[in-house]
């Protein structure tokens, strides 16, 4: 490696640049510049993954001097005990509802806004507001808006009692006869209401990504499609817009799914995982079991499963991207 010093003077047009300049000041600087980043990546990102993987096979608790290896006990618990199967159900429900809904609404809003002659930016601004606002603060506002008695939603619903609405909807009539839903307090509604807030918060983000994607669709394609007989708006969407948005969709899908798996703020602040564990999502389970109750082993196992989901999704995305979702 220790080559003659003369090599370092051969500046931009060296004959064998890569090898000869191994000890040039620039490459020393290179090591110095990447060193802090490498150190932090190893300590903050890589080490924790390994630690979580190791701890998931133990019964470790903070404050205990030692721990025992318990094999796959933690994982078996996760797929057999009702608490954890409820957790998986809650997370799966949340993801399977929020992802398609917030992507669909994001795409719908983007298409509508894009086709407007005027005021498109106005809607764009409004729909993006929830993305900017602290979710915890908005969760508390939603909780209050959906309060069973004093909340604005149920009070508004009550004011519609006795009108035609009671005739056209059994649900509405039942609400008027007894009471309107407790929303977060009712096990039939809680998870759906939490999903609703997730959709409310996230679809503006997807809309913006789709709007960016739509600017990349060449206009000539629509003309070409029209010549080929694609007349209806649906045909234009099906034959041109949707395929051209393929890469955006794959990206939006991945990021929304990963974010949905991480839902925490609304659950912690409003339902605390209840009622009867219907909203007991994974991040909340990790927080409650491992950090509040010091059951590190099971928390680590949930962490590992969680990471596995995320990695699987990302690789699926990469695979889809490489496997021609790109048409240009």
């Amino acid at each position, binding site marked *: 490696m220790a080559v003659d010093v003369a090599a370092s003077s051969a500046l931009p047009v060296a004959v064998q640049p890569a090898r000869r300049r191994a000890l040039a000041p620039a490459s020393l600087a290179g090591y110095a510049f990447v060193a802090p*980043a490498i150190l932090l990546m190893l300590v903050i990102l890589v080490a924790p993954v390994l630690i*979580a993987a190791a701890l998931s096979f133990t019964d470790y608790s903070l404050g205990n001097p030692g721990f025992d290896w318990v094999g796959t006990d933690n994982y078996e618990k996760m797929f057999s005990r009702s608490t954890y199967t409820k957790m998986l159900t809650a997370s799966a429900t949340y993801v399977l509802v929020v992802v398609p809904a917030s992507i669909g609404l994001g795409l719908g809003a983007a298409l509508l806004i894009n086709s407007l002659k005027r005021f498109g930016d106005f809607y764009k601004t409004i729909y993006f507001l929830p993305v*900017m606002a*602290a979710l915890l603060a908005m969760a508390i*506002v939603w909780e209050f808006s959906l309060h069973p008695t*004093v909340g604005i939603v149920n009070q508004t619903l009550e004011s519609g009692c006795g009108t035609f609405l009671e005739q056209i909807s059994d649900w509405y009539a039942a609400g008027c006869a007894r009471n309107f839903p407790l929303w977060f307090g009712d096990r039939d509604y809680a998870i759906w209401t939490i999903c609703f807030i997730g959709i*409310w918060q996230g679809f503006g983000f997807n809309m913006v990504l789709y709007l960016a994607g739509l600017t990349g669709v060449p206009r000539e394609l629509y003309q070409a499609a029209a010549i080929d007989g694609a007349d209806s708006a649906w045909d*234009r969407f099906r034959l041109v817009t949707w395929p051209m948005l393929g890469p955006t969709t794959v990206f939006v899908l991945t990021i929304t799914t990963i974010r949905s798996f991480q839902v925490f703020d609304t659950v912690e602040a409003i339902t605390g995982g209840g009622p009867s564990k219907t909203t007991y999502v994974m991040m909340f389970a990790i927080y409650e079991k*491992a950090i509040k109750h010091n059951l590190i082993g099971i928390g680590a196992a949930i962490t590992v499963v969680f990471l596995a989901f995320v990695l699987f999704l990302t690789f699926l995305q990469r695979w889809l991207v490489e496997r021609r979702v790109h048409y240009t």
Partner: protein
Amino acid sequence: MTGHASPFSEALKHAVLIIGALIVILPFYVMVSYSLKAPHEIETNTGGFFGAQEQMVDEYCVKLGNAREDCLETPAIFNYTQAFKKAPLLRYLANGVIVTASIFLIQALVALPCAYALAKLKFWGRDMVFGMVLVCLLIPVHAIALPLYIMLAKLGLTNTYASLVVPWTISVFGIFLMRQFFKTVPDDLIDAARMDGMNEFSIVWKVMLPTAIPALLAFAIFSVVAHWNDYFWPRVVITGDRDLYTPPLGLREFRGGSDGSDWGAMMATAMIIVTPLIVAFLMAQKRFIEGITLTGMK
């Protein structure tokens, strides 16, 4: 898209979008309105948007032994002063600023030289380092909160500013983003700087940094929005010490200790926490949307 958008279909689109906008706006409406109203107006849902703003008696003040006349308050002013009185909100806001600013500064300090090295310097192992960055991009920090928490607890660092900042000091996304940006900077610029006798260190901060301002600004918005609004991580590492609460934790604490009588003050607190970013967003929408959707540049 093409020419045949009739006025009717245009109106229909607006109708759909307006209904959507009303639902999106609803909680913001509730937040602003209730932060101005008196408790009895909130409970009975009267008073319109602004409330009547009639003088009301602060019962707590009466309980402290003051005369009723001395305890008269205007609801809007009362709610906002209560927000600061009931909890050290200013302290929380200061914490939020300290934490988000430190996170961004350290992220930039670590990411910029690294990104420059990965984009412009040649050294053995560079591709391996970049590969490591790409692998680390796959790890969401929230997902590894538990092992990070254990590491910090073992070091006795929970309930410190350090615990709020340290896990976020490395932004692999920042490195990746800046590296892609630096790739587009012409080599001539760097060679000219070298000819002038600048060392690599000053090249990063005096040549590369100024060219990277737009990208760095977008990254700053991305980082600040994420960490000002973050609730999960502070919740994990700050367990007892109220002096270290960030704004979302402070609001949560307020909510938890509430007996239901001070919803107005709580909504005022929410307003105070949410407003800075919303105002900044409304003033610089393009930049914000660009910054927040940065992740879309991958």
